[in-house]
């Protein structure tokens, strides 16, 4: 097998890793839009909080003397999910629920305000500087000829597996469980679902909490993978994830997954074969192209006007 093939494989793996992380955060955006037709701009901040809580939890647990790494990471994951879910739920209750039923733009502005508020809250609480975490999970597999070794690190594998498992779990939840059915009903027609006796407020809160949990998972994985956090990472990650959600069709969960992977792979191949400087240009041009030909995104359902 030639060097070129392994190089291609390496860039593909890099792209899928980055793409998986976009997908995890994009799901939060797409689910909320599907249910209440609103873009939750504060979602990126929930991911950022997940990363911070992970760092704090890991540092705290290691200081308490717990040495066994998988246990530390698992505990940190649980703590991060609990923290992010609480934030997600609280954000919905304070910033969006009181504005339900108003013009679409008003909750949007409220979301932006909440996003700025959370960033600055973290700046005050934790400082504006970058904080770092030493590598916790190291090592991986290398394969290929001596002239170019493609490598997959264990952390990357964990990211793939965690993303795949959570996607599967979410899809099963939505299609098989009672609450999942309620979510689908509310997504189709909120007023009708209300009339039929579904507690729509609880469904909406659940959606936010699930989105926040996935963002927390992304926060843990990316915190361990990159080892850096600052109060502004939510903004950039949110922007990319939102793009992925729109690319795949906003409102569609498989769309968010597909959009994330496509975005990640495009960025990776552009950087690998063309130039790292134009990575974002190509990725966003792709978004424009796809929206020109399919305005609702790749897997999006066209908006049907109900008469």
């Amino acid at each position, binding site marked *: 097998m030639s060097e070129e093939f392994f*190089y291609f494989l390496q860039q593909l793996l*890099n792209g899928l890793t980055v793409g998986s992380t976009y997908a995890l955060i994009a799901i939060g955006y797409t689910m909320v839009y599907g249910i209440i037709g609103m873009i939750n701009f504060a979602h990126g901040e929930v991911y950022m909080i997940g990363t911070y809580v992970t760092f704090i939890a890991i540092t705290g647990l290691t200081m308490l003397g717990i040495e066994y790494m998988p246990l530390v990471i698992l505990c940190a994951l649980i703590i991060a999910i609990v923290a992010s879910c609480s934030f997600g739920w609280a954000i919905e209750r304070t910033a969006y629920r009181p504005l339900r039923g108003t013009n679409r733009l008003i909750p949007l502005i409220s979301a932006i305000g909440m996003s700025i508020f959370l960033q600055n809250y973290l700046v005050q609480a934790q400082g504006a500087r970058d904080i*770092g975490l030493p590598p916790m999970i*190291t090592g991986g597999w290398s394969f290929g000829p001596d002239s170019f070794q493609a*490598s997959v690190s264990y952390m990357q594998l964990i990211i793939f597996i965690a993303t795949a498992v959570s996607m599967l779990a979410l899809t099963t939840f939505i299609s098989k469980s009672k609450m999942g059915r309620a979510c689908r009903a509310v997504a189709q027609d909120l007023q009708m679902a209300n009339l039929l006796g579904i507690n729509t407020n609880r469904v909406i809160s659940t959606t936010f909490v699930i989105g926040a949990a996935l963002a927390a998972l992304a926060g843990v994985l990316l915190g361990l993978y*990159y*080892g850096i956090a600052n109060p502004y990472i939510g903004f950039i990650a949110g922007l990319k994830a939102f793009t992925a959600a729109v690319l795949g069709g906003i409102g569609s969960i498989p769309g968010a997954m597909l959009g994330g992977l496509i975005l990640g792979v495009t960025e990776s191949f552009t950087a690998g074969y063309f130039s*790292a400087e134009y*990575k974002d240009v190509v990725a966003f041009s792709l978004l424009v192209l796809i929206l020109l030909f399919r305005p609702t995104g790749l897997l999006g359902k066209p908006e049907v006007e109900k008469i």
Partner: protein
Amino acid sequence: MKKKFKLASLAASVLLMGVSTFSAADTIKIALAGPVTGPAAQYGEMLLNGANLAIENINKAGGVNGSMLEGVVYDDACDPKQAVAVANKIVNDEIQFVVGHLCSSSTQPASDIYEDEGVLMVTPASTSPAITEAGHQMVFRTIGLDSLQGPKAANYVTNSVKPKSIAIIHDKQQYGEGLASSVKATLESKGSNIVMFEGITVGDKDFSSLIAKMQKAKVDFVYYGGYHAELGLILRQASEKGLKAQFMGPEGVANDGLTAVAGDSAEGLLVTLPPSFDSNPLNKSLVDSLKAKNQDASAVFVLTSYSAVQVMVDAMKATGGTDTDAMQAMMRTTTFNTPTGQLQFNDKGDLTDFEFVVYNFHADGSKTLAK
């Protein structure tokens, strides 16, 4: 009844405003402009530490021409747009002296405003040559230029490192890209083999594609122009992927923000830095004062900021007032005695002489002279 209350409160607020301006007239305000928040906040802190110590010492010695100095902090977050807003605010607050800004991309647009309004600006940290190319009379700096730092790094590379394949990466900003281009020009003139010259975006976290590209091109030396956040991530990811290359960076990377992210992979990084002014025995009392406040005296911009304040104060004393026009004229004609040496400014406002030194950076944050 309501009308009387309104009138009374209006009168009270006017009086209060009057009182506050009266008290301000007794102090000379110096604006300290730099990043207090954002990715470059560490450097902003260095600027504030140095400048505040200078203001403290000068006030203890009796102030300047009978007035005390007062430092007023402004945050530009290393963002050019915010820097312009800060510059306008400083002008509106009627402050005539600025120590700052810090990031070259912020100093550049701000300097245009200061020149228009007659505000004297001394930057202790912006190294981009473009800042003094515009012919501004109000702009000075107490640090060297990237047009010196770049060739210094490149000469070290060709004389001591002698790598086979060089990659030059920058962060597309004024400071980083300027340096990278300067290094590239010098290396090319010496016939080095540069296989990659690429930019990354500030705020990016994933550099695995870039690193794979470098591995494919068998790069064994990487020069990075930019700040510590991205280089820290690149070092960490390069070490994980097994890229065996020597990295080198400018003074914008050598701080504990780098080691927090890169950890052990920062060991052996080459950096070009201003000389260690803190190891000069003449500065011992300053170093001790900083240590007493738990501040790091060896941080790159601390003593250059002290010098910036010193230079302004000496100019005020020499001209007997705060006329910025007279001050800037006299600043070019004399030698200033500062913690960073005997400083002389040329026509452009640059120091006539400033040596950058090549160091080996270590994972614990210390540095040793590179041979």
